[in-house]
């Protein structure tokens, strides 16, 4: 390899490479040799009895299985670092591939590795479409240590939006949300010095990360949208925590807002 730079076509390749490039391929939005020609239906995982799985396992070498487990672990980590939920379809298509028959064994082992080495676990946030995120299994820490950077700022903005939605009764119109953010000097039309394109951040990135669910309201012209909490928000925080944040900000007791308080209590 010395002195030779691999052409792009080769880089979109094999083994370790294949699953890493699906992202760039998605961005390119045109097919490549990799994703085309997959006739198998990767949305269905064959249900098997444990003895069947055992037999399938025996037909593969330990080395092969371990390799797949490693690939899956890396795949999950890379996706999750970008806070992108992981679809089972993609796991099957990009990583498992022809090892579909030992899918459950590979996933189980990957899960054990994630737990043992990273203290992470896979959590299904969409049981219909089988979409996962990684969450930490380590005990939570009271927030005294924080990294000052854009990720924190984004989370802060997100919490503000989640709070607004909750206080408005779990659903808010986009015009109301933007009006509220305007008071914090965050405007959808202007480039924010920290967040950049705020509209994109809120309506695309947060939605893609499953923190927000934004649905169009039918028969509205110009189109209006409804903001709600996304499944990741529900998993990573709670109504109780959000209400207690609002209470701290307003220097009041959470019970000051009776209906939200009752709702938060019922939610735990």
């Amino acid at each position, binding site marked *: *390899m*010395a*002195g*030779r*730079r691999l052409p*792009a076509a080769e*880089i*979109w390749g094999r083994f*370790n490479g294949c699953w*890493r490039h*699906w*992202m*760039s391929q998605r961005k*390119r939005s045109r097919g490549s040799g990799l994703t085309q020609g997959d006739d198998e239906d990767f949305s269905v995982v064959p249900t098997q009895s444990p003895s069947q799985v055992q037999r399938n396992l025996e037909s593969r070498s330990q080395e092969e299985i371990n390799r797949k487990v*490693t690939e899956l*672990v*890396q795949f999950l980590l*890379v996706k999750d*670092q*970008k806070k992108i939920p992981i679809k089972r379809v993609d796991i099957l298509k990009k990583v498992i591939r022809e090892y579909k028959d030992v899918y459950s064994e590979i996933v189980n082992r990957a899960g054990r*590795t994630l737990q*043992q*080495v*990273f*203290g*992470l676990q896979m959590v299904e946030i969409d049981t219909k479409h089988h979409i996962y995120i*990684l969450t*930490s299994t*380590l*005990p*939570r*820490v009271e*927030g*005294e*240590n*924080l*990294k*000052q950077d854009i*990720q*924190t*700022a984004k*989370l*802060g*903005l*997100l*919490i*503000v939006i989640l*709070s607004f939605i909750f206080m408005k009764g779990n659903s808010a119109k986009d015009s109301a949300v933007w009006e*509220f953010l305007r*008071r*914090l*000097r965050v405007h959808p039309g202007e480039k924010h010095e920290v967040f950049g394109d705020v509209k994109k951040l809120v309506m695309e990135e947060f939605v893609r990360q499953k923190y927000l669910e934004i649905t169009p309201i039918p028969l509205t012209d110009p189109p209006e949208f409804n903001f709600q909490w996304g499944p990741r928000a529900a998993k*990573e*925080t709670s109504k109780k*925590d*959000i209400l207690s*944040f*609002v209470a701290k*900000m*307003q220097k009041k007791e959470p019970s000051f807002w009776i209906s939200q308080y009752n709702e938060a209590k019922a939610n735990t």
Partner: protein
Amino acid sequence: MAAQMSDAHRRFLQVLMSHGIMEGAEARKLHRCCCEISKAYYAQDKLDDFVSTINNQLQPLFMQIRKGMSEVDGRTHYALVNMAETEITKMASDYAENELELFRKTMDLIILSENGFASSTDILNSADQLKTKKMKKKEAEQVLKIFVDDKWLSERNGEYTLHTRCIMEMEQYILSTYPDIAKKCNICHSLAIQSQACETCGTGMHLPCVGKYFKTQSRPRCPQCNDFWPYEIPDRSRIDSQSSSRRIIEPYGDPTDALYKEVILETATKMKW
């Protein structure tokens, strides 16, 4: 010397993974924090042993926590690197094809340059000639900013060089891809992107390595050919620490905690229900 993997190790790994790279001082603080939180035994100054325990677990996954030196201030940094990758495939999952091509072109410019920096003008001009898909200057500027945010490049006065994290991650790739051009430091023998080189014999050294090597010499001479060293010797004591105020996040943690940050706290008090 194999200690057991514990929650302290896992927490350290989660945080390092979310940062990508950390300065030595920050890493030591994180080590202490993680041990305190998990009520694990904390052996001060034993960060490297702590890291070894983690590396034992990472090895079958082709990952490693590596130690490297910043070319700017000579400080030790710890980065989580992927060892299965031998090329830019590590980045390939995060960027579009033409963005990767722009990065490769930028890397060419940096490595071929005298001082290890590529001017934004040169980079933007090459954006115009991308084979994959042309990029307008505006878009290329945005992409460069993303590379800086993601710690592949660092920027100084409109010029770009490789970030410490990038050098640590891609050292082998760079040395094998640019075998005759990429420089190695005469003192520490690692890849040198920014360096001072002897005008006579071409021997090169990292700036911090130069500072260290010539510390006691009043009339610095090239270690290879003994000619006078023509450059200003970097002063090792001048670097200001800006990491003391940096604190550590719980990367998978309760996002509500984020709001206790000054930045948000200030704006949030303006909220009215």
